[in-house]
């Protein structure tokens, strides 16, 4: 068990900088999710931990050891690939046993040695049972369903009892229902083995539900690290604000008219915090924090989407499109074209600088 720490780690491919001066401390035993849109460099960051990509710049540590020049096979790391990367010519049992044959292990604190066949069989048995694969050990991967393959990949990572588990979008090939179930399974696995997990995904729901802490990455640069709730409630910049949350946060351009009030068209939006008067800002308001009825924000209804338990009322606020969430039992839907007033709590207003996009309050 060890933490992983990036210190100004950079990865450059010919012309692309995939990871740009990443500094991130992953604490021993924590479930860290790297979250970001496609192509932002999260897989590259993960592959650098694994040793599958060289490091162009900076220092990478696993535990206390600098691993910049340690070969992949000599790092004590298990990885679950998006494609699962099961060996197609081996049975499930042989797949799970492979890392036990390939590597030396220290047993009960002794010096590392090759495991005996009995020890291997015992560990394989253990892993296979934990993941509910006991019936399938003699099958080859070709004869398994996607979900079963995924669990074989997990079992193969688990038998190793590695210092760090890496997972690169392990759920993206599963259907929605199985994905939700496997999410829980992985969190439980993490609790059981109590080892550092680094988990890559572009799906914010996965990140929010599974992570102890998550790191949001865009364009190779770290945007914010923190517990999911913190990141959701206090996004550090406009990118994080817009990326996290569904439907996404509404953003309205405006100017600070007086202390604690932003003016945007005909609307006046009060907020908490100190921002100099006259500053150009972007106001962020989550759809669930806006209410139809009384309020200082004036909006025109453009469309209404009905989702059963709730409605999304799409409105125009001072030229910006915004979504208002309305519970179905909160009353009738507004008519299209109607001018409505929206209310909100001042503490739910996020204010970002229009130039730097950084958070101001």
């Amino acid at each position, binding site marked *: 068990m060890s933490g992983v720490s990036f210190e100004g780690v950079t990865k450059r491919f010919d012309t692309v900088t995939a990871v740009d001066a990443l500094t991130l401390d992953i604490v021993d035993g924590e479930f860290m999710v790297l979250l970001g849109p496609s192509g932002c460099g999260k897989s590259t960051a993960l592959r650098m931990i*694994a040793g599958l990509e060289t490091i162009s710049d900076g220092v990478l540590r696993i535990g206390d050891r600098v691993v910049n020049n340690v070969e992949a*096979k000599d790092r004590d790391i298990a990885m679950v690939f998006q494609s699962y*990367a099961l060996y197609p*010519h081996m049975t499930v049992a042989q797949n799970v046993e492979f890392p036990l044959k390939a590597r030396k292990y220290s047993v009960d604190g002794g010096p590392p040695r090759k495991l005996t066949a009995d020890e291997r069989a015992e560990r394989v048995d253990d892993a296979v049972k934990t993941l509910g694969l006991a019936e399938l050990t003699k099958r080859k991967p*070709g004869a398994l369903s996607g979900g079963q393959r995924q669990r074989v990949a997990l079992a193969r990572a688990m038998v190793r009892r590695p210092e760090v588990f890496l997972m690169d979008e392990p759920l993206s090939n599963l259907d929605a229902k199985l994905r939700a179930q496997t999410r829980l399974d992985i969190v439980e696995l993490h609790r059981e083995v109590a080892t550092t997990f680094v988990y890559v995904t572009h799906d914010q729901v996965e990140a929010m539900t599974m992570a102890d802490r998550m790191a949001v990455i865009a364009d190779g640069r770290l945007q914010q690290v923190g517990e999911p709730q913190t990141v959701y409630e206090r996004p550090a910049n406009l990118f994080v604000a817009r990326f996290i949350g569904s439907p996404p946060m509404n953003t309205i351009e405006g100017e600070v008219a007086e202390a604690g009030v932003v003016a945007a068209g005909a609307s006046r939006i009060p907020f908490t915090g100190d921002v100099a008067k006259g500053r150009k800002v972007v106001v962020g308001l989550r759809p669930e924090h806006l209410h139809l009825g009384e309020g200082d924000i004036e909006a025109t209804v453009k469309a209404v989407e009905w989702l059963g338990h709730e409605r999304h009322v799409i409105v125009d606020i001072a030229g910006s499109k915004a979504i208002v969430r309305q519970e179905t039992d909160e009353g009738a839907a507004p008519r299209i074209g109607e001018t409505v007033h929206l209310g909100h709590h001042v503490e739910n207003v996020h204010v970002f600088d229009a130039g730097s996009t950084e958070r101001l309050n």
Partner: protein
Amino acid sequence: MTAADHLTPIEPVPPPARSAGLTGAAVGLFLQAVILGVAGAVAAVQALGLTLDLLVGIVWALVRSVGIDAGTPDLFPDLAIDNLDTYLLLAVIGACLLLLSRHEVRLGQALLAGDPEAVPSAVGLQWWFLGIGALFAFWTLVITEDAVLFPVVAVVLPLVVLALVAIGGGRPFPRGAGGDSSFGGSERWNFRSRTERREALLALVFLAPAFAVFYGFFFYPLGRLMHFAVYQQNRTGTAERYVGFGQLTDVLSGDEFREGLQHTLTYVLFTVPAGLVLGIVLAVVANRRLRGIKFFQTVLSSTVATSVAVASVIFFVLLNPQVGYFKVNWLAEPDQVLFGVSLSSIWQNLGLTFIIVLAGLQAVPDELVESATLDGAGPIRRFFSVTLPIISPTLLFLIVVLTVFAFQAFAQIDILTAGGPAGASETLVFKIFQRQQPIDLGEGSAMALGLFGITFLVTMGQFLILDRRVHYGS
């Protein structure tokens, strides 16, 4: 009330309508019955005649044995008692043919009467005729060159009957046949449906060119080869005489064939494993993402663009004891000559081996190798435990192809050694090549047939043995 009461009663199968097709098929069956009946009768009469001969012979022998020569132990002097099996066989065949003929008459009657069971039986019978008939037709073709009667009776007639059955609305395929067709499950051609008739016709049109090519360049030559293998030509090739399988067995068990086979197998052993291993090693080394690797890949695969003649001349020069680069005497030493020749083949085939293995390696998903690395496997274990099993189908293909190449090697031997010294590099193909005079044609053909059989067996063997160890990706 039982559960069965709720079930819909099973509809009786409606008899196929009396149609022109089925009537035609019945006529076909009657025709067959007549031919079979005549053949059966002839066989029966012959068997009877032979049996009479036999009886007369036995009586005659008994008479003699109690006669003046009573002292001689020679009980059946000129009576071929070992022909007894021939008489019995003839008798059995005759009986079978007569029974079949009778059966066909009944089937034909049932068909005319519209009995639904008759169609599948008639169809099944025709497929048997086709199967056995095709075999015999091929054989008569080989022996007599212009066999007409037998194919007509045993091939054309069954086909006509089947077609008529189909037109009459029956299924031309017996139950269980063709179940794995791409049309899935137990679906059958229904020749009454216009679309399916068109599709069947289209299938025939598409198959025809392939069949024509196969017939012209494979079946017909193979037939001629078999013909020559059992015939003896005169010196000028103007007349031939049937000599039977004896020629084939004599040649195949003879010293020449054994010697040629020995040389060929030695040659296979020299070229195949070495060429394969070398190709794999080079492909593994060249399978990198490095700047400029394309250049090396091109160079290593360049030998595919050279001809056997060029390769042979290059090695002739390289190995020449006086002016060569290596100045070795390999090509002149009987026990080293095959090794010397194999060098040029290994070199010449290396490009092909390299390209194919490289293509195989590039199809191995990167993630599998990466995964094995993270599992702690070093390069050697990664190669033998992951890469090699995954490219095994490619390797099987290569082993088979290289073996066949080696079995067929000729030009390099002709150019480098002309079979010498003292016949030490005369492989089977070379020996066959030497037997071109009409008088030798029989022997050469027998050898060629033997070579074909051995190549076929070896290839099948490789498929059977290696296939079990070969992983075919999922």
